[in-house]
Structures are given as C-alpha cells and as structure tokens.
C-alpha cells in the first residue's frame, strides 16, 4: 500500500513555494519538487541550472503537468526513482519561458539539465531511457536508478 504524505510550506521571506511528497512503498521512493513563484528569474538561470543535480523547466508542475511532453519527462524521472529535482513552471513566467530558450539555445519546453549541463528535451530523455543511457547518466550524478532494483527483483 502506498501512503502519501504531502506538506506544503510557504517561505514568506523568499516567496518560494516548496512542495514535498513522500511516498513509501517497497521501492522507497521519495519525491520533492521545488517550485519557484517567479520574478527576475531570468537573470539567475545560470545559477538555477547548477543549484540542483537534476533541473527541469516544464509546463505545469510535477504534480500537475500541463503538457504531454512535460508529463513524459516527469513520468520518466519518476520511473527511475529520481525523487529530488527542481522543477520550474514556465507557464508562470513569460520571462522564464523565453529566457530558458535563449539560455540553452533550444526552442522548446520541457528542458532537462543534469549537473548544470543541458541534456535535451522530451525526445532525447525518452531515447536515453529506452537505450539504457539514462541509467548510466543518473549513475554519474550519484543517483541510482530505481529500474536497476526492479531488474534485480525479477
């Protein structure tokens, strides 16, 4: 049985929303997604992509994606048990939405960054997942993919 505990905390000083969902099941997944209510985020993009190991710019939130491609990225990360990542909702901030495209020189959303380096969008992440490359890339980040454990169980 899954039990999901959600806590939403608003840090008044920095106007940042934190959303945490802790799931406990046999595979011990835990997920946190940090959401920025934005202003002047564009200037900090270089900082933002380096702040967390896995950073995703998407439409909507991990709990509620607003686009099929963004949802695909969220689901792939979830399958691999990547619980902790920063997710920025470009729909909340037009400056962010345009800024990230300029920053990565990439025309579409979602955009995925590993260790501050641009990985690609949904297509690339999906192909990496299918080819097994994603497990390897996550390993380089020090993240053990949940799929490895699943293989062992079978």
């Amino acid at each position: 049985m899954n039990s999901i505990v959600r806590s939403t905390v608003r840090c008044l000083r920095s106007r940042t929303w934190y959303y945490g969902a802790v799931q406990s099941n046999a595979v011990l997944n835990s997920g946190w997604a940090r959401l920025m209510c934005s202003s002047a985020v564009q200037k900090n993009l270089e900082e933002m992509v380096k702040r967390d190991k896995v950073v995703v710019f998407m439409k909507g939130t991990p709990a509620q994606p607003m686009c099929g491609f963004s949802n695909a990225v969220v689901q792939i990360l979830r399958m691999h048990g990547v619980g902790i990542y920063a997710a920025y909702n470009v729909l909340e901030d037009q400056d962010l939405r345009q800024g990230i495209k300029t920053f990565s020189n990439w025309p579409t959303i979602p955009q995925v960054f590993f260790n501050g380096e641009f990985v690609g969008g949904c297509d690339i992440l999906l192909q990496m997942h299918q080819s097994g490359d994603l497990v390897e890339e996550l390993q380089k980040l020090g993240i053990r993919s949940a799929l490895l454990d699943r293989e062992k169980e079978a």
Partner: protein
Amino acid sequence: MSVTPDLLREKLIAEIGAIHVDVEDTSPNRCAASFKVLVVSPQFEGKPLLQRHRMVNNCLAEELKEIHAFEQKTLTPEQWEKQKAQ
C-alpha cells in the same frame, strides 16, 4: 509564409543531407502548428543525440519560430535499416 511538411522535408534534405524524412503534421491534436519528424542522415554518424537534434534545430531555425510543438527522431542510415528490420 506558413510551415508545411514539404518545406521542412526540403530543408532537411538540402541542408543536412537527409536521405529519408518523414514529416507528420500533428497539428490536429493540438491548438497550433505541430510537427513530428523522422530524419535519417549520414551526417549524424558519430554524433550524440543532442548534437543531432541541434543540427535539425539549426536547419529549421526560422520555421521553429512559428511552430508550437516539435518532436524529432534522428537516425543514421544504419540505425534506420535496423529499425526497419524490427
């Protein structure tokens, strides 16, 4: 100028030496111009995924400004033959 599948195909053949291009207009599924492309080109040989996708993006830079959603799959001729055989 509106973006058409033929236009995308022509550019990909001309500029990145694509030997095969499939363009699917996925706009009916969404509210705005959307395309899904399969590009097969020997120029992708030895290049990682991101670099291949950037080649396509650069080739279609002007068109992408008008396209809302864009999916792409990039294969070398060898990969494509393998895929067809499956």
